[in-house]
């Protein structure tokens, strides 16, 4: 209990404190400190949850089970490494006058508030509060995206704000609809929005209303997951925001949205006892996969490109959750983990690369391996990992996903195959010239901190070679929680 409170409080306190701290170097250190404390607390919390498989906090307002607690740890971990990475990175930005001290303050506090929103969203047991915290995280990131105040960054933030605002509104409407039907079962109190209770009484909820509700939730949260065709905000937000923000956007925020979507799907499955929600998610997943895969081939901005790769992988996860079998959910959770790790790692590397070459335009980034082997190999390995080459974890999860898909919906494998292939082609078409070849003259030496990157990749590698038993059982529990009852497996 205390642990839990500490986990939530440390980012809040950190955020408030950082809001007033002018000394940037000190602020960076405090930022790291906050990240570390949060991570430690979450880790202990996770161990506790492992011990007794789930517990409710603060009178049932918060609920921790196998599904969300590992996401909490993941969030805290990526948050921590991001703070470590951002210290030298933002310092470099400050020195090159892209931000001033005031903005640095804003950056630090908003970063921690974002973390707070994330953790709140993952832990809360109330789908209303879930929505609120997601909105909170969104607002925080909007300010972060527009941090540089360049025309492009403001425009990107605006696009982000409007599109996600609209989406999030739809999600709220979906929530209202759920309340609309659940209130007749569970009364008008908080109970009617308490997720655990809803799940218990899912079968009593009205299928028709739940269906309509899920349509709204799908589009609403789908917008934040970055599913096509609601994905337009994502590449610009990633491209124009500071790199640490891109890292946490891709690595964390999308996860939270997907998490929310899956929680709702579980309710709808319970209510409708059909595969409808699953099919909806699979459809969006495949469309996103294809759209992203093709878009990868025409990108000019390195961060935009990798954000499209995020869309691709979110599509894969949505697809996997849509299938809904044990194996598929396992694959999806594993994929969520490794994608967060690898993608944030890639964004760290990309950030350094952009600083080293003084541009985000891929046409002018060349010969990274020659210029700075650490960055070059980091980018190369990261891309190989994200493209699904073993022995990294992405390969494992895609392997499982593929088999699961063939198990239930054989024909979808064609789409998967096509999408993965085209996406890989797009990535390497762009990355190969950047890491290889001769060094351009505008390149400048940078002092970089590749430690977080290599930690991330090492973890992804570990997950690819052998998944620790406790983690595996964890995934299994989570998958068992998520797994929808109404999927029949077609035997060939």
């Amino acid at each position, binding site marked *: 209990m205390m642990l839990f409170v500490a986990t939530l409080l440390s980012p809040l306190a950190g955020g408030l404190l950082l809001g007033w701290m002018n000394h940037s170097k000190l602020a960076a250190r405090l930022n790291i400190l906050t990240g570390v404390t949060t991570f430690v607390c979450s880790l202990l919390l996770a161990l506790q949850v492992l011990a007794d498989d789930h517990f409710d906090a603060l009178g049932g307002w918060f609920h921790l089970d196998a599904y969300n607690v590992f996401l909490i740890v993941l969030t805290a971990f990526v948050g921590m490494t991001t703070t470590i990475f951002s210290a030298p990175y933002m310092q470099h930005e400050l020195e090159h006058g892209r931000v001033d001290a005031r903005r640095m303050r804003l950056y630090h506090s908003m970063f921690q508030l974002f973390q707070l929103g994330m953790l709140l969203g993952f832990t809360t047991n*109330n789908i*209303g*509060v879930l*929505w*609120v915290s997601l*909105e*909170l995280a969104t*607002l925080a990131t*909007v*300010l972060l995206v*527009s941090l540089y*105040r*360049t*025309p*492009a960054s*403001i*425009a*990107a*933030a*605006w*696009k982000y*704000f*409007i599109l996600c*605002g*609209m989406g999030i*509104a739809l999600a*709220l*409407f979906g929530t*209202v*609809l759920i*309340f*609309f*039907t659940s*209130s*007749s079962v569970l009364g*008008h*109190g*908080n109970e*009617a*929005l308490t997720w655990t209770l809803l799940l218990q009484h899912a079968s009593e909820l*009205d299928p*028709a*209303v739940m269906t*309509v509700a899920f349509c709204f939730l799908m589009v609403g949260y789908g917008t934040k997951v970055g599913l096509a065709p609601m994905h337009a905000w994502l590449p*610009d937000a990633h*491209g*124009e925001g500071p790199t640490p923000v891109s890292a946490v956007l891709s690595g964390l925020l999308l996860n939270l949205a997907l998490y929310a979507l899956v929680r709702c799907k579980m309710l709808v499955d319970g209510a409708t006892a059909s595969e409808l929600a699953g099919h909806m998610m699979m459809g969006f997943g495949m469309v996103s996969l294809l759209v992203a895969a093709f878009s990868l081939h025409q990108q*000019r*901005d390195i961060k*935009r490109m990798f954000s499209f790769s995020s869309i691709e992988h979110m599509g894969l996860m949505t697809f996997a959750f849509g299938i809904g079998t044990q194996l598929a959910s396992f694959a999806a959770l594993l994929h969520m983990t490794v994608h967060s790790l690898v993608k944030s790692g890639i964004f760290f590397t990309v950030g350094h690369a952009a600083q080293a070459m003084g541009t985000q*335009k891929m046409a002018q980034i060349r010969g990274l391996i020659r210029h700075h082997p650490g960055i070059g190999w980091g980018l190369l390995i990261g891309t190989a990992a994200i493209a699904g080459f073993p022995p990294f974890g992405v390969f494992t999860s895609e392997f499982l996903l593929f088999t699961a898909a063939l198990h239930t919906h054989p024909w979808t494998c064609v789409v998967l195959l096509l999408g993965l292939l085209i996406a890989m082609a797009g990535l390497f078409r762009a990355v190969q010239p950047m890491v290889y070849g001769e060094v351009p003259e505008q390149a400048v030496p940078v002092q970089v901190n590749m430690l977080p990157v290599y930690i991330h990749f090492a973890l992804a590698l570990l997950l690819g070679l052998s998944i620790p038993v406790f983690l595996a059982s964890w995934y299994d529990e989570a998958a068992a929680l998520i797994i929808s009852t109404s999927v029949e497996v077609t035997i060939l």
Partner: protein
Amino acid sequence: MTGSFTLQLVNGLAALMLLVSFALLAQHRILSVLHWFALQGVLLAATAGIVAWGTDNHELYISAIMTLLLKGALLPWLLWRAVMQLHVHREIEPLMNSTVTMLMALAVTLFSFHIVQPIEQMSALITRNSMAIATACMLLGMLMMITRKKAITQVVGFLAVENSLFFAAIGATNGMPLVVEIGVAFDVLIAALIFGLFFFQIRTTFDSLEVDAMQQSLREDDEA
């Protein structure tokens, strides 16, 4: 039991809500848009009050007052201030001409009725009919966001969507739990503040509130 009376009142207000949404969509001048928006806020507060009275649910009184202050007064005032300071209280040219917009609006309304009517039947609530209206209003708000060029009107559209959501919450479900209400309200407030912040930045960077100007800058940044 005043149920039937409350019901009539709420239905009446619902009809008004729909009317206001159409009006918002039809406006050409920003200031009048703001007026109608304020009116919508007031209607919302009224609905909350009536439902609170009808179901004597005390939490709802709080949210009614909250609504009145926030959506009836604060937000319109903020927007009005922004408009005044940015000198954009001139004609606003919609993206497509208004008759087409109106036709689309009608179609959307019909559609939302078609969708929502059947599912209302299961609700035991006295005020269930307003769900269809709420849906319609929301879709109309989205339509407004789509068909307007100026940033401010987009924001008004966004807030209109929020209003209709709120209306759905109150009208159709007798109000969400207070915590959620407060949370939502808080978010909306922050959102509005950020919007306000943005207006000035946009204005200073693009010296216009045209959304397309921003898209242009994005494209240039990407192409460059």
